[in-house]
């Protein structure tokens, strides 16, 4: 870098400058950092919530992959397969003394609630359950509230099929809460043997495969090549998975649009710098400085401020995001009805690609718009320094 540009850049960055100049630089950094941190926080929040919903749905409702086979255990070797569980499923009406609700009853085996699934929900067991011959079911706290029942209460489970109506009295052995009410209000767990015994022909039995999301298609392909009929949770719930992906992309598009506006704002910052320094720039022109040398110094200074702000804003946004779970837990505990359709319990995930896109767009838009705005430097007449004085 030209020594003149370097000296000018350092001074514009407040290095070796007076306190007022340093304050201006810090103020600009703080301003851009705040905007970036809010963008980053919003993107992390939306992506984490989307993935949280997807995880809950995949792990508790359908499994990553559903295999429809006979009673033989599907066997293929793949390092990314976590578990394969046999489950049964049936739609039924659940009756409390006062209310009823259509639910999806899922019969599972003891091993079903492994660590991955247990991480997705909190289970409250009955503390002093009296011995009962009734079958135990696990419903969500959301459903319990809706049916006005509590743990250890009795409910009637009724299957309505084409040829018969069968009812079975059962007892609430445990309550669960995933934090996602849309899932909670329709999903009921019970023992697989009980479900098969009670509803025999009405039960759909299949295998749920848990794997890693990124290997989903590979594992599915492996099963299909081995002769199994496999469906991913996304294929099973095209509206939900499509909505989640569309939401993520829409929010990313909004964030990118805001980043573009922010880039334009940064060019306004450089314009203001030039406006404030007109007399100084005119003096530099008077003593023979080439306009491009002056432009380069201002461009570099603004882009250093921008880059530092992007880095700080990203770090701050991630830091804020890491503090979200306790805050969301507090909000969830207050059960605001307006938030009942939002997932408020999810792990924070940093979407590196999304954040890189936002940061890159902000940097590139700033670089171009600042470059364009600095064209006015060339128009500052050397003689104007005499007029300013």
């Amino acid at each position, binding site marked *: 870098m030209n*020594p003149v540009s370097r*000296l000018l850049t350092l*001074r514009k960055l407040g290095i070796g400058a007076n306190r007022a100049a340093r304050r201006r630089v810090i103020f600009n950094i703080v301003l851009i950092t705040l905007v970036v941190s809010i963008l980053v926080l919003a993107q992390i929040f939306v992506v984490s919530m989307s993935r949280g919903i997807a995880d809950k749905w995949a792990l508790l409702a359908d499994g990553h992959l559903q295999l429809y086979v006979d009673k033989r255990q599907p066997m293929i070797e793949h390092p990314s397969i976590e578990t394969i569980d046999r489950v049964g499923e049936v739609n039924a009406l659940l009756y409390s003394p006062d209310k009823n609700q259509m639910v999806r009853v899922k019969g599972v085996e003891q091993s079903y609630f492994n660590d991955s699934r247990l991480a997705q929900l909190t289970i409250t067991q009955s503390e002093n359950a009296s011995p009962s011959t009734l079958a135990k079911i696990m419903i969500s706290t959301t459903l319990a509230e809706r049916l006005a029942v509590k743990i250890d209460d009795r409910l009637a489970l009724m299957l309505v099929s084409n040829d018969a109506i069968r009812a079975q009295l059962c007892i609430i052995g445990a309550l669960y809460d995933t934090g996602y009410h849309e899932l909670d209000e329709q999903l009921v767990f019970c023992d697989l043997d009980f479900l098969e015994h009670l509803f025999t022909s009405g039960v759909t039995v299949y295998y749920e495969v848990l794997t890693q999301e990124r290997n989903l298609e590979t594992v599915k392909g492996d099963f299909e090549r081995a002769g199994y009929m496999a469906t991913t949770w996304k294929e099973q719930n095209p509206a939900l998975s499509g909505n989640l992906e569309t939401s993520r992309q829409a929010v990313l598009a909004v964030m990118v649009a805001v980043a573009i506006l922010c880039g334009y704002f940064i060019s306004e910052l450089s314009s203001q710098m030039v406006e404030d320094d007109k007399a*100084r720039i005119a003096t*530099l022109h008077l*003593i*023979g400085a080439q306009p491009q040398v002056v432009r380069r110094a201002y461009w570099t200074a603004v882009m250093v401020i921008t880059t530092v702000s992007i880095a700080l804003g990203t770090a701050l946004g991630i830091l804020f995001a890491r503090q979200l779970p306790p805050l969301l837990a507090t909000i969830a505990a207050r059960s605001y009805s307006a938030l009942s359709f939002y997932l408020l319990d999810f792990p924070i995930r940093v979407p590196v690609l999304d954040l890189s896109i936002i940061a890159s767009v902000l940097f590139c838009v700033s670089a171009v718009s600042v470059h364009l705005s600095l064209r006015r430097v060339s128009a500052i007449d050397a003689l104007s320094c005499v007029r300013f*004085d």
Partner: protein
Amino acid sequence: MKRSTDLVYLHQVSKSFPATLRGGEPIQILESVDLTVQRSRAIAITGNSGSGKSTLLQIAAGLMGCDHGEVWFEHEKLGEMDNRALSALRSRRMGFIFQASLLLEDFTASENVEMAAMIGGSSKGEARDKAHEILSLVGLSARLSHRPDQLSGGEKQRVAIARALVNEPAILFADEPTGSLDEGNAAMVEDLLFSLVRQKEVALLLVTHNLSFARRCDEIHRISERNLEVIG
């Protein structure tokens, strides 16, 4: 006719300004003015306020174009040079001092001079050495790291002189360089200016309404009625 030894040569230069921002009948400031500045010569331009002294200096330095006529600097016609070439010319061959010191406020006295040296093509180290040398010549070796707001008016003008001369220009354009100083400081700056101009054999084009200051030059020209006349 321009001679090869002429440093600055103005031939039949005319300049007018619009009467108002919206145009109107232009006001003629200079009309068919001729002026020659030879190497190492000091020329003073005097005249009443608003007579066009500063305009003439600015045209001679290539800071302002003229409506008619030719302006030459050494072997080049200023009107035919682009901004880049004019900047390069100003940085290496010309020095400027105005009534206001026009120092860069965020820079120390030394950095103000170093900046001019670096713009003139010196490396950072060379620029620092040159700046320290010339600032000690103007008596400011103890003020190297002071910012303009920590210097007196006379000291600022001495820094401006150092900055104007650091690249050893062929000519120094000075427009009322002592106009904003008190009598004592003005005399000191005058002495310093002439001593350095003589010592470094730099030509001087001085615009002043102060006749005693003008009399220290080799020639005195007066602008009157849009024309230039030699009065001493």
